[in-house]
């Protein structure tokens, strides 16, 4: 797997940042925020290797996706297996796709509507451009799938990729979640009253809201048999992928968390793992009053026994909400937690909230024997996804 995030641009630096509480938040650099209410976001400073440029069919989102993919493929030692393959799938999750170039082009001409030339930077970068770029990089001729399921898209990508592999449709899949920092998303979330002005404080009383972020993560998915045959180091197992839909509100979650609970239960059922076997939950945990309350309620619904309810934490306190990338980055964080036996804490937590009566592992990494982890992702449209990931030493369910 590979990650590129506001707090680390490879697995080691990312994991280290999760342990030390390195903040991704900084004054926004991509555009002028002086006329806005908030000015802080979680952006990534990166350099694109020249060799990658010919494969970048899109813009910033595509670049982030490719940077995460080359890390993942190198780390998995899978390049020889990928090159020119017809039985390798690319599954990409994103929210806004590659809108950043359009946004940048427009900044100089805000007094008039978009010209055809400006529109072309949008229309020439449709939602499937990240997937096509990844396919181009390795000459892949298998299925290329884009699941633009908003803030749950990264989890959807990994879940669908795992499904395609386990069904034998493809030998291997590259699951990618990616998002570029978007002015439109920044303004939109601000208008919804969902943004924090300084830091993101998931599960904390008086939490003000989310911080917008950007980034990407890629995971190489294959069967255990294929991985062992080629001598690959297994980072973890995708044991369950749960889905549900709130069918309630287009931008807000169901306040009682029914859909979120159903997605977690679905993942558990599909994995054949009892709730008490779950050791940790990587929360969606956006830091908005509604989400964290809802997720806490959902957790109590699925794990009603106070004594055996697993701890949960949100890394969005540091990374911000990377939208389409979030589910994939958080799956990577969950796998690293399994590997290291350490729960990344919820940083920036200040005060207990009676609406969030859960153990959110505040401000201090916690050593724990981790075998099975749930990673939750929720999105506009009431889309809920939960991934059940297991330790390589525990083995698949």
């Amino acid at each position, binding site marked *: 797997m590979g990650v590129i995030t506001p707090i680390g641009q490879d697995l080691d630096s990312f994991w280290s940042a999760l342990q030390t509480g390195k903040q991704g938040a900084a004054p926004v650099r991509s555009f002028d925020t002086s*006329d*806005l*209410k908030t000015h802080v976001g979680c952006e990534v400073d990166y350099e694109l290797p020249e060799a990658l440029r010919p*494969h970048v069919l899109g813009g910033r989102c595509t670049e982030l996706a490719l940077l995460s993919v080359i890390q993942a493929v190198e780390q998995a030692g899978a390049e020889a297996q990928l090159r*020119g393959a*017809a039985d390798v799938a690319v599954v990409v999750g994103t*929210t*806004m*796709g590659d809108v950043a170039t*359009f*946004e940048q082009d*427009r900044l100089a001409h*805000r*007094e008039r509507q*978009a010209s*055809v030339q400006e*529109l*072309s930077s*949008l229309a020439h970068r*449709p*939602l*499937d*451009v990240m997937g*096509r*770029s990844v*396919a*181009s*990089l390795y*000459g*892949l*001729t*298998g299925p*290329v*799938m*884009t*699941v*633009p399921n*908003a803030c749950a898209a990264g989890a*959807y990508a990994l879940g669908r990729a795992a*499904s*395609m592999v386990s*069904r034998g449709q493809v030998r291997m899949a590259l699951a990618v979640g990616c998002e570029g920092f978007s002015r*439109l998303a920044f*303004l*939109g979330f601000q*208008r*919804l009253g969902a943004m924090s002005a300084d830091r993101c404080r998931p599960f904390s009383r008086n939490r003000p809201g989310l911080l917008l972020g950007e980034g990407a993560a890629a995971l190489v998915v294959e069967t255990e048999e294929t991985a062992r045959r080629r001598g690959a180091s297994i980072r973890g197992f995708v044991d369950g992928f749960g*889905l*549900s*839909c709130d*069918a309630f509100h*287009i*931008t807000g979650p169901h306040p009682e968390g029914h859909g979120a609970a*159903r997605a977690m239960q*679905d993942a558990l059922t599909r994995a054949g793992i009892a709730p008490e076997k779950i050791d940790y939950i990587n929360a969606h945990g956006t830091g908005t009053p509604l989400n964290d309350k809802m997720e806490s309620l959902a957790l109590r619904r699925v794990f009603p026994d106070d004594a055996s309810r697993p701890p949960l934490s949100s890394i969005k306190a540091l990374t911000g909400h990377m939208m389409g990338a979030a589910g994939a980055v958080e799956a990577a964080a969950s796998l690293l937690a399994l590997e290291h036996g350490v729960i990344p804490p919820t940083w920036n937590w200040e005060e207990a909230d009676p609406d969030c009566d859960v153990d959110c592992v505040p401000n201090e990494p916690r050593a724990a024997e981790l075998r099975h982890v749930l990673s939750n992702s929720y*999105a*506009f*449209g*009431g*889309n809920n996804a939960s991934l059940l990931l297991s330790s390589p030493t525990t083995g698949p369910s």
Partner: protein
Amino acid sequence: MTGHWVISATGVISAAGAGGEALHQALCAAAPLARPAGDDAPGLFTASLQDFKAKDYIQRRGLRDLSRTSQLACVAAFPLSRGLENADPVDVGVVLGTGWGCLESVVDFEWETCSLKPRFLNPLLFAETVPNVPAGQISIFFGWSGFSLTVSCSGASGLEALRDAVELLEEQRSPMVVAGGADAINVPALRVLQSDGKMASTAPSLPMGRDRNGIVGGEGACLLLLESADHAHGRGVQPLARLRATAGRSDGGGDGQTGPRSANIANVLRELLEQAELKASDVDLVASSADASPADGEEALALHEIFGEGADAPLVMTPKGILGESWGASGPLAAAAAIECMRTGQVPPRPQGFVTDPHLPPLRLPSETTNAQVRNAVVLARSAGGQASAVLLSSPGAC
């Protein structure tokens, strides 16, 4: 595919109006629906729904603020909802394909951010910029809460959605899936394609025809209700068709300009037939994805390679000759048209004004509506990015 999956209802809205019957009638009438797009887009030809308002089809509040794509999607879903009043909402999932993913809302919202103070921005318009919102609106409007998945693969989005729906059924995520595609006329994107020289400069511009000179913009939504044959039987529902096989693959990235090569399309067709355990000669009808672009030649080559020519070759229809290119909706609309051909035993002719292109391999595009028993139909879709996708439908009698 491991199951015995059937289509038990269709919901259709296109430039031809609402319903599969209207669609089939328009195709059989063979009169292209393309018109000059008007002052918003001079020089463009589009086949659009004139004066479309979702409330004319669904008497429910809350539709007016939705994007046109979301409205089309909800209108297409409405007929399906009438057969599902007694279904447990959790038992119905939604998979929607969209090529442009509310791009027009992105452009509109961006303009709002330039012309209004931040506190006056329309939060509903922001929501509609997010590509999975049309599927979410369907779920909310009809209460279907099994799951919601959005798929985007340009012109192949709708058939890719059907493929994913089958996979989700096979994974037993819900016993029924409402699946298909939706895309509205998207003037900003069409203006860009026009400047790229991809849009028709005169009408009609007929797919596979000698005088084709580019794409006519279309719009619509089409949703199919998928379930197992046993489940449909248990509900007392007579299937309209069997969804017998699905296939799709990409060209390896593609340039986003030319669409899949003929070899890729031919491979997808071979995979489809193999999966369905059918011979090429078992196929009675092909619903082509030809859109009057140069890429039609690649599709014609592939169809000729797989199905040959002469009386044994399947009849070919080109729905986009009448409806234009409606991206995410195109594949499912062609599937709905194929189902109507099975039901009526009538295959639409090539569009009026069609002149055979001597440079393309010969295909059986009938010159008039043809009575034919359609047992098996192949529906094709392709994306500008090099994806070829296909589904194979069988008539209920062949199930």
